[in-house]
C-alpha cells in the first residue's frame, strides 16, 4: 500500500505545454506516492493525454519541472523514461498488427535479451499477473483485451516503478475490467505507482487512492475518490451542474418498423469479420442497442444496414414491410433509412468542405437541396443554419469548414443533419465517442425526442454505460453473431459481459469481484 510519508515517486511542478494557439497544459502540478493508484480525471480535451506523454518523454514540456524519486529529471525520450522505470500503456495501442506478440514486446523494451529467453520471460510474467499470452501469435489475431495484455506485459517486463494507463478500460468487457483491476492492485501492493487516466467515475472510486481533476488544461481539484460521490466528481470534472436526461414517455408499438432477418455477409477485408445469421426487429419509438467489444463485426453490420454494402437478397432488411436490402445507401435514404457512421471526420463529413456543403452528402434529395443535378446552395445553407441553431452547434456559421469544429460540435451537427430529416429508421454508430459530456447529453436527448416521434433507432456502441442509458432493448454482437435481445431494464452487467466475450480467456473469480454500473 502507499504511504504518504515516503519520498513521492513523481512530482510535477508547473508543467505547461502549448500547441500553436491552444494551451493543452497550464501550470499543472501534483505528486504520486510509491504504490499509490492516482487517478487523472478529466473530459476529452482536458489535457490528460498531453500530460502523460510529457511524463513518458514522447512530448517535451514548454515549462515546468519533473522530480523522480526526489531528484530533478529531464525526460527527453521514452527510452529515458523506461530507464527511470516509467512504463506506459497507450489508449491507442502502439502495436504492430502484422508482427507477433514476441516481436512487439521486444521492440518496446531496451536491451532485449535474445528472443527465446524473452519468450520464456513473457510467459512467466504473464502467468504471475494472470495475463495469459501466447508469444508467437500475430497481433491482428488477438482480441482487444488480449492486445492490452501485450502492452501491460511489455511494461511489466521492465519492473516499472510507475505505470501510466491511458483510458485502459474503454475497450474491455466488464469481466476483463475486473481482471485488470486485480492485476493493478497486485502491482500497487508490490510498490508500483499507477497513474490511471479515465473519465469513468465508478472505476476510479473502486480502484484509486487519490484523484487529480483536470479541466481545460488546469488542475481544478484534488480529492479522495473513496469519499466523493460519482456525481460530485463529475461536476468537478465538467465544471457545471449535470443536466438530468429526460426519458421519453412515448410508447413502443408491437409492429416492428425495421426487420433484419438472417443477415449473413462474408467480409472482403483482410482483418474483417464475417456476419453470421444476424436477426433483430425494432419497433416504432424503440431504441435498440447493439453492444460489443470493438472489432466483432460492428463496422460490417452498420455498413450493411446503412446500404454502404448492398445485399443480394432484398428481404434480408425490411422497412415497414418493404424489402430494402438490395438498395444502395441513397435509395434506402429515400425510403426513410438514415445513418450516422462511426467516423465523423472523413466518413460522415468531409473535413475540408463547409457545413452547408456537408449537408448535401446525405440530405440532398430528402431535403430538396439539389434540383435537376444542380446544387441549391441557398437551401443547403439554410438547412445547415437550422441544424446549427436547433442543436446549438458552436460554429462560425454554415460556411465554416467541418474541420474547424470540435469533435463534440461536429458530432452534434452530423446527428442533427440526420435527425432533422425525420427518418423512419435511424442507424447510429458510436453516437458520443470522444465527445464532451454536455454534447453527449444533447445527442442522447435528441435521440429520445426522435424516438418519441415514432422513429425506430439502432444504436451501435462500445460504451455499455451509454447503451444502458439510452436503449430499450439491447443485443450483443460477438464474432459476427448477434445474441438474442435483452430488455435493458432487466439485463445484468455480468450477463451482458458474458455475451461480450468475457467468458473466454481466463475463467476467473476476478470477474465476479467487479461491480460496475
Amino acid at each position: 500500500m502507499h504511504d504518504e510519508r515516503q519520498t513521492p515517486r513523481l512530482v510535477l511542478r508547473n508543467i505547461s505545454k502549448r500547441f500553436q494557439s491552444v494551451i493543452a497544459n497550464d501550470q499543472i502540478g501534483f505528486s504520486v506516492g510509491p504504490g499509490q493508484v492516482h487517478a487523472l480525471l478529466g473530459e476529452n480535451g482536458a489535457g490528460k493525454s498531453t500530460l502523460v506523454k510529457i511524463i513518458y518523454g514522447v512530448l517535451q514540456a514548454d515549462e515546468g519541472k519533473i522530480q523522480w524519486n526526489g531528484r530533478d529529471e529531464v525526460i527527453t525520450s521514452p527510452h529515458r523514461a523506461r530507464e527511470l522505470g516509467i512504463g506506459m500503456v497507450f489508449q491507442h495501442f502502439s502495436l504492430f498488427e502484422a508482427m507477433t506478440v514476441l516481436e512487439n514486446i521486444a521492440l518496446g523494451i531496451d536491451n532485449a535479451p535474445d528472443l527465446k529467453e524473452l519468450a520464456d520471460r513473457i510467459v512467466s510474467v504473464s502467468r504471475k499477473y494472470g495475463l495469459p499470452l501466447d508469444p508467437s501469435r500475430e497481433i491482428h489475431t488477438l482480441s482487444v483485451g488480449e492486445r492490452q495484455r501485450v502492452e501491460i506485459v511489455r511494461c511489466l517486463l521492465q519492473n516499472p516503478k510507475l505505470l501510466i494507463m491511458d483510458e485502459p478500460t474503454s475497450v474491455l468487457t466488464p469481466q476483463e475490467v475486473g481482471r485488470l483491476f486485480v492485476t493493478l492492485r497486485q502491482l500497487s501492493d508490490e510498490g508500483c505507482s499507477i497513474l490511471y487516466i479515465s473519465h469513468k467515475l465508478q472505476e476510479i472510486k473502486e480502484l484509486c487512492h487519490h484523484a487529480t481533476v483536470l479541466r481545460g488544461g488546469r488542475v481544478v481539484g484534488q480529492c479522495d475518490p473513496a469519499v466523493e460521490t460519482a456525481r460530485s466528481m463529475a461536476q468537478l470534472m465538467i465544471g457545471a451542474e449535470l443536466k438530468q436526461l429526460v426519458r421519453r414517455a412515448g410508447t413502443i408499438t408491437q409492429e416492428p418498423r425495421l426487420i433484419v432477418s438472417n443477415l449473413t455477409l462474408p467480409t472482403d477485408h483482410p482483418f474483417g469479420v464475417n456476419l453470421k445469421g444476424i436477426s433483430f426487429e425494432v419497433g416504432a419509438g424503440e431504441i435498440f442497442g447493439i453492444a460489443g467489444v470493438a472489432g466483432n463485426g460492428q463496422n460490417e453490420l452498420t455498413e450493411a444496414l446503412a446500404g454502404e454494402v448492398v445485399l443480394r437478397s432484398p428481404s434480408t432488411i425490411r422497412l415497414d414491410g418493404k424489402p430494402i436490402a438490395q438498395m444502395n445507401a441513397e435509395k434506402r435514404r429515400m425510403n426513410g433509412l438514415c445513418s450516422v457512421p462511426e467516423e465523423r471526420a472523413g466518413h460522415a463529413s468531409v473535413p475540408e468542405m463547409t457545413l452547408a456543403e456537408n449537408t448535401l452528402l446525405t440530405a440532398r434529395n430528402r431535403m430538396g437541396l439539389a434540383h435537376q443535378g444542380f446544387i441549391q446552395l441557398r437551401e443547403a445553407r439554410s438547412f445547415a443554419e437550422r441544424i446549427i441553431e436547433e442543436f446549438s452547434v458552436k460554429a462560425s456559421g454554415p460556411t465554416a469548414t467541418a474541420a474547424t469544429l470540435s469533435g463534440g460540435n461536429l458530432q452534434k451537427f452530423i446527428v442533427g443533419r440526420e435527425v432533422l430529416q425525420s427518418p423512419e429508421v435511424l442507424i447510429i454508430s458510436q453516437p458520443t465517442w470522444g465527445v464532451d459530456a454536455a454534447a453527449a447529453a444533447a445527442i442522447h436527448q435528441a435521440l429520445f425526442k426522435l424516438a418519441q416521434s415514432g422513429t425506430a433507432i439502432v444504436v451501435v456502441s462500445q460504451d455499455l454505460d451509454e447503451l444502458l442509458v439510452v436503449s430499450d432493448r439491447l443485443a450483443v454482437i460477438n464474432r459476427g453473431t448477434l445474441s438474442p435481445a435483452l430488455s435493458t431494464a432487466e439485463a445484468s452487467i455480468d450477463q451482458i459481459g458474458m455475451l461480450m466475450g468475457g467468458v473466454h480467456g481466463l475463467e476467473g473469480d476476478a470477474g465476479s469481484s467487479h461491480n460496475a454500473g
Partner: protein
Amino acid sequence: MISESIVNISAAVISASTPLLFAATGELVVERSGVLNLGVEGMMLMGAVTGFAVAVSTGNPMLGILAAAVAGAALALVFAALTLTLMANQVATGLALTIFGIGLSALLGSGFVGQTVPALPKLALPGLSSLPVVGPVLFGQDGLVYLSVALTAATAWFLKRTRPGMMLRAVGESAESAHSLGLPVIRIRYLATLFGGAAAGLGGAFLSLSYTPMWMEGMTSGRGWIALALVVFGSWRPWRVLAGAYLFGGVTILQLHAQGIFSLPAQVFSMLPYLATIAVLTIISAGPWRGRLTAPAALGKPFRPSV
C-alpha cells in the same frame, strides 16, 4: 544438343533476372520501412551509366560496380531528403526522380555511347561448375549474380531474424507507434531508402557491365517499373520476390525464342513480359489470396514527429 540449349536458355534466364532481383530486393526493403520510392528506374540508370563510365575510365569493373551502388544511393539520398525531411509527396517525388535519372544518365553517358568494356569474368566455382547441366547454369555465372542471390538471402535473414530488421518492419507498420516506443523512425527510413538506391544501382551496373556490356540511353527499358511490380507480386517477401524475378526473366527469354518459332510481329512478343506482369498483379489483387496480400500498413504515408 538439347541439354546444351537448356544450359544456354537457363543461363540467359538467370542473367535476365538478376538486374530485376537487385532492384526489387532493394525496393522491398524501402517499402517495408513504409517508404514508396517510384524512382527505381532512374536510380538503375544512374547505376548503369556510372558503373560503365568508371569501369571504362579506370579499366577496373570492380570499381565500376562500387561506383554504381554509390550513384544509386546518391540519387536515393535526394529522394530521402525531399520526402523524409522536407515532407514532399512520395509519389510525385519518385516519379520526378525517374525522369531526372533518365535525363542525367543520358547527359553523363553521352561520351560513352559506342564504347565497350570487357564483360565481367565468369566466376566458376571449382568442382561445382563442372557438374553436367546444373554446373554451368548455377555455378558458372559472374560474381554479381551470386551477389544478387546472397543479397536476397541476407535481406530475408535481416528482416526476419535481426533486431534492426524488426525495427524496420515496425516503422513500416506504424510510424506513430514506433515513434511512441522511441524508435528513430526517420533515420531508419533514410537508411532503408539508401539501401534501396544502392541495390538499384547494382542492378543497373549488371546491365551495363555484364548483360549487355555497353552504355545506351534508357537501357533499363522499364526494368525499374517491373521491379516495383515484383515487390507487390512477391507480397513484400524476399524469396517470393526472387521467384517473381526469375519467372519474369524466364518470360523475357522465352519470348525471344518464341519469336523464331511463331510468325507474329516481334513487338507482340516483346509485350509478353509486361502483359504477364499486369495479368499476375490483377490475379493476385482480385483473387481469394487478397487477404494474404499484406502491404506494410504505413506504406507511402509521410510521418512528421510532433514535438
